[in-house]
C-alpha cells in the first residue's frame, strides 16, 4: 500500500500525416515544458569494430547544423535557458529538451534542425573524438565503471549488449566521417520518430509544429531489433589496479522488458540489493561492515538483461564478501521471501516509480519509453499493478531459473 494517486489521465498516441507519432500531455502546474523524441536507433546495432558509433553520431548532432556552427548552436540553445541533448542506450536513442513555456517554439525548432540538418563538420568530429576518448579514460579511473564494463563483456560475449556504449579507445580512434553519415542516413527517419511533450504548452500548436517541421525520409528505414543474446560460459575473471579498495561484480543474464518474468525479476532484485533494507545491504554492510557501496542492479533491455551484485571492499575482505554475496543468491533459490519483506519490496518499487514522476521530463520519458519498447503507453498506468501481483513463489522460481552459473569479475586493488 503506497497511497500514491496519479494526478493525470494517460494521453493517447496520435499519428501525424508525416508518420511521426506524438503523445501530448499539457499541464499548467508550472511554466516548464519537456519534450523527448525517441529515435529507433539502438546502441545495440553496433558491432565490435564500431562500438560507440551510435552515441558518437548522436553527440555530433549537437555539434552544428547546416545553418549554425557548433558554438552558434550551443549559444542559441543556452540563450533560451533551455537544456538539450541527444543520448543513446542499448535499445533506442532519444533527443530531448527542457525549456520554459515561452521558449518552447524556438527550442523545438532548434531540435528539429539538430535532428534533420546536422553538418558533421570534420573539425567537429575531431573535437568530439578527443572529448569521447577522454571520457572513456575517465570512466576507466572509476572502479565501478571499469568492473562493470568487463562484467558486461564477459556476460554477453560477442553480443552487442556486451559492448561499451561509449566505445573503446580503439574503436573511437578509428571512426570516419563516412561511417557517421552512413549511420545517419540508414537509421534516422523522422517518419518513425515518437515525440512526447509534457508540461506548459499548447497541444494544437505543438501538433502543428511536429507536422510541419519534421520531414519523413523518402524511403522508410527498416527498424533494427537486437537478437536475444546467447548464453555464454560463466567466467571468473580477475584483473588489477592500484588503489585501496577491490571491487566485485557477480551475476547472470536475466530477462528483458518484454519477458513475462520482468516484474518478478524487478522484485527479486529489490529484495536482493536495492535500498537500506535489502539483503546485501543488511548482511554485507550492516552485519559485517564489509562495504559502503554494496547492492544489486537489474538491467533489463529489449532482448535480454542482467542482474548482478556488487561490492567495493578492502582487498583482504574480497573473498569473504564474494562468498557472502553468492550465499544470498542461493538463499533466494532455496527459500520463499517472507510475505512482509516481499510486500515491502513491492511498495518500495511502486513508491520510487511514482516519486520519479514529479518532473515533466521524467513523465515524458516514461510515457515514450514504454511505447518505444513495445510495451505500450498504458504500461505507465499498469506497472504498479504488475508489481503488486508478484508472488513469493514467482520470485523463488525466477531465482532458480536465472541465478545459476555466475559470471564473476574482480578488480583487485594492489
Amino acid at each position: 500500500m503506497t497511497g500514491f494517486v496519479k494526478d493525470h489521465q494517460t494521453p493517447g498516441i496520435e499519428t501525424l500525416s508525416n508518420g511521426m507519432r506524438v503523445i501530448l500531455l499539457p499541464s499548467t502546474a508550472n511554466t516548464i515544458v519537456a519534450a523527448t523524441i525517441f529515435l529507433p536507433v539502438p546502441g545495440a546495432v553496433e558491432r565490435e569494430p564500431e562500438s560507440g558509433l551510435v552515441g558518437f553520431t548522436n553527440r555530433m548532432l549537437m555539434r552544428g547544423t547546416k545553418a549554425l556552427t557548433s558554438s552558434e548552436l550551443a549559444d542559441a540553445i543556452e540563450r533560451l535557458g533551455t537544456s538539450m541533448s541527444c543520448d543513446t542506450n542499448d535499445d533506442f536513442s532519444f533527443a530531448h529538451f527542457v525549456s520554459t513555456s515561452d521558449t518552447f517554439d524556438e527550442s523545438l525548432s532548434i531540435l528539429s534542425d539538430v535532428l534533420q540538418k546536422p553538418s558533421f563538420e570534420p573539425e567537429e568530429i575531431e573535437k568530439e573524438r578527443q572529448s569521447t576518448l577522454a571520457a572513456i579514460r575517465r570512466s576507466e579511473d572509476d572502479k565501478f565503471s571499469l568492473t562493470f564494463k568487463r562484467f558486461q563483456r564477459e556476460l554477453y560475449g560477442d553480443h552487442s549488449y556486451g559492448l561499451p556504449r561509449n566505445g573503446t579507445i580503439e574503436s573511437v580512434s578509428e571512426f570516419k566521417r563516412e561511417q557517421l553519415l552512413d549511420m545517419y542516413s540508414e537509421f534516422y527517419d523522422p517518419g518513425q520518430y515518437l515525440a512526447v511533450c509534457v508540461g506548459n504548452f499548447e497541444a494544437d500548436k505543438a501538433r502543428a509544429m511536429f507536422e510541419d517541421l519534421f520531414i519523413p525520409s523518402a524511403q522508410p528505414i527498416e527498424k533494427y531489433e537486437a537478437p536475444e543474446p546467447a548464453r555464454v560460459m560463466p567466467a571468473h575473471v580477475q584483473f588489477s589496479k592500484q588503489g585501496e579498495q577491490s571491487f566485485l561484480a557477480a551475476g547472470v543474464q536475466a530477462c528483458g522488458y518484454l519477458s513475462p518474468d520482468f516484474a518478478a525479476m524487478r522484485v527479486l532484485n529489490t529484495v536482493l540489493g536495492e535500498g537500506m533494507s535489502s539483503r546485501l545491504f543488511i548482511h554485507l554492510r550492516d552485519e559485517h561492515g564489509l562495504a559502503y557501496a554494496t547492492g544489486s542492479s537489474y538491467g533489463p533491455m529489449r532482448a535480454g538483461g542482467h542482474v548482478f551484485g556488487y561490492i567495493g571492499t578492502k582487498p583482504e575482505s574480497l573473498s569473504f564478501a564474494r562468498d557472502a554475496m553468492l550465499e544470498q543468491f542461493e538463499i533466494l533459490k532455496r527459500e520463499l521471501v517472507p510475505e512482509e519483506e516481499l510486500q515491502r519490496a513491492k511498495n518500495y518499487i511502486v513508491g520510487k516509480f511514482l516519486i520519479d514522476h514529479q518532473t515533466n521530463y521524467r513523465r515524458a520519458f516514461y510515457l515514450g519509453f514504454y511505447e518505444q519498447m513495445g510495451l505500450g503507453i498504458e504500461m505507465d498506468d499498469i506497472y504498479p499493478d504488475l508489481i503488486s501481483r508478484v508472488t513469493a513463489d514467482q520470485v523463488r522460481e525466477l531465482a532458480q531459473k536465472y541465478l545459476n552459473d555466475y559470471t564473476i569479475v574482480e578488480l583487485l586493488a594492489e
Partner: protein
Amino acid sequence: MKLLGKRGVSLLFEQLSCGLPVLIKTVPNKVVTLDAWVNTGSANEDESNNGISHFLEHMMFKGTPKYGVGELDRIIMNVGGVWNAGTSKDFTHYYVTVASPFFETALDCISDMLQNSLIDKNEFDREKQVILEEFRRKQDSPFGFLYDELYEATFQKSPYRQSVLGSFESISALDRDAMYDYYQRYYTPANMLLIIVGDVEPHLLLPMLEKAFSGFKNSNQPLQDGNHTTEFSVPATKVIEKDVNETYMAMSFPAPGILAHEEVLALDLASTILSDGRSSRMYQDLKEKQRIVHSISAGFPTHRHESMFYVISTLDADNVAQAQSATMKLLREFSEIPPGESEMAKAKRIISNGFQFGMETNTGQSGTIGYYYTLTGTLDFLDSYLERLASITPEQVSSVVRNSINREPNIVVLAPHTNTKDAAL
C-alpha cells in the same frame, strides 16, 4: 502562521512550542517531503573529532528505543517512501518522501530519529568499518580525492579544510560517548529547521507537529562554530601521482561567504559565464579552440563563512602548465573587461531557468530552501535571489573575479605515474 517570502518563494513559517522552526510549502502533487536541517557539519569539528557529523548521520538510522535497527527504513519502505541524508561542511540534513496520506508515518519516523537515536555501542563499532570503507572508496575516486585535497590546500586554518568524511586516523579514533555528547549538543530545536513540501494542509499539520516534537529539549552546552578566518594558504602547487589514466587539475582562489549577497550573486553569474554550457568562455576557449583540456568547470561552493572559487579541468599531463597559464589569462581578461549585456542576459536566463527546473521536485524545493535558510538564518536571500540577480551589473561580475584572483591560485594536480611533475612545475 506567518507568511514568509513575497518575491521568489513563498512559505508558511511557524515556530513550535519546543523552539523548532518549521517551514511549509504546499504543492498539490500527491507527494510530501519532510526535510530536517541541522546546523552542523564538518566545519563544526576539529582535528580530534573530524568526521563525527558524517558518522552520526549514518548512526541516525541505527535505532531508537521505539524502533530497532533498520526499522525506520523498513517502515518508510513499507509505504513506498524513500529516505535520504547528506552531510556537508556547514550542515547535515535528513529527508523522507512519501505519498501524502502517509505524512504522519513519515513524521513519526523522522521526529523519533532526530530526538531519540540511541547510538548503540555495538552498532557504532560495526558502522565504523563501513565509514572506513567509504573513506577508501573516496581515496580511489579521482574527483572525490581531488576535491578534499583542494580544500586542504586552500584553507590554511579555517575548519573548511577538513574533509566531511574525516581522515582514516580521525575516523578510527572516534568513540561512541563523544558522538552521543555531540548529538545531544547539536541536535536541538534551536539548532535545526524542519521543511515540509508537498500535498499538505498546513493548519491540519500543526497539532501533529506539536505532538511529535513536544519533548524536544534544547541543550545548554555551547556549540562549536570553528575558528573561521579569511587567512588562506600561501599559493602553492601540489602534484600527486596515482594509478589514473587522465590528469585532474584543480585551481582555487579565495571567495566570500554567503552573507556577502551581492558578491555571491556576481560570482554565481561569473561561474555561469565562464563554464556553464558549451557556449561558455572556458569551454569554447580552452576545450574547443586551444584543445588543451578535455573538460573544464568553474565552481563556487558557497559556505556560511569564507569560501573558494575554483576551476577544475581534466587534461593530458603534458598540457598542465599550458592549461594553468591559459586559465589565468582568461580569468585576468574577464576581470579587466566586463562581460557584454548579451552574455549577462544569457547567464541570468540560465540561472533563472535552472532555479525553476530545480524546483520541480519536492526534494529540489526543500533542498534549496533548506540550504539558504540554514546558511543565512532567514528566507530573505532566497526570496530575493532572482530579483537581485537581475540587477547585478557587468562591472560587479568582473570586479568579484578581480578580487578573487588578485593572488596566485592554490593548485592540486592528480596525475598518472609518469614524468608529469616536470610538466606541472
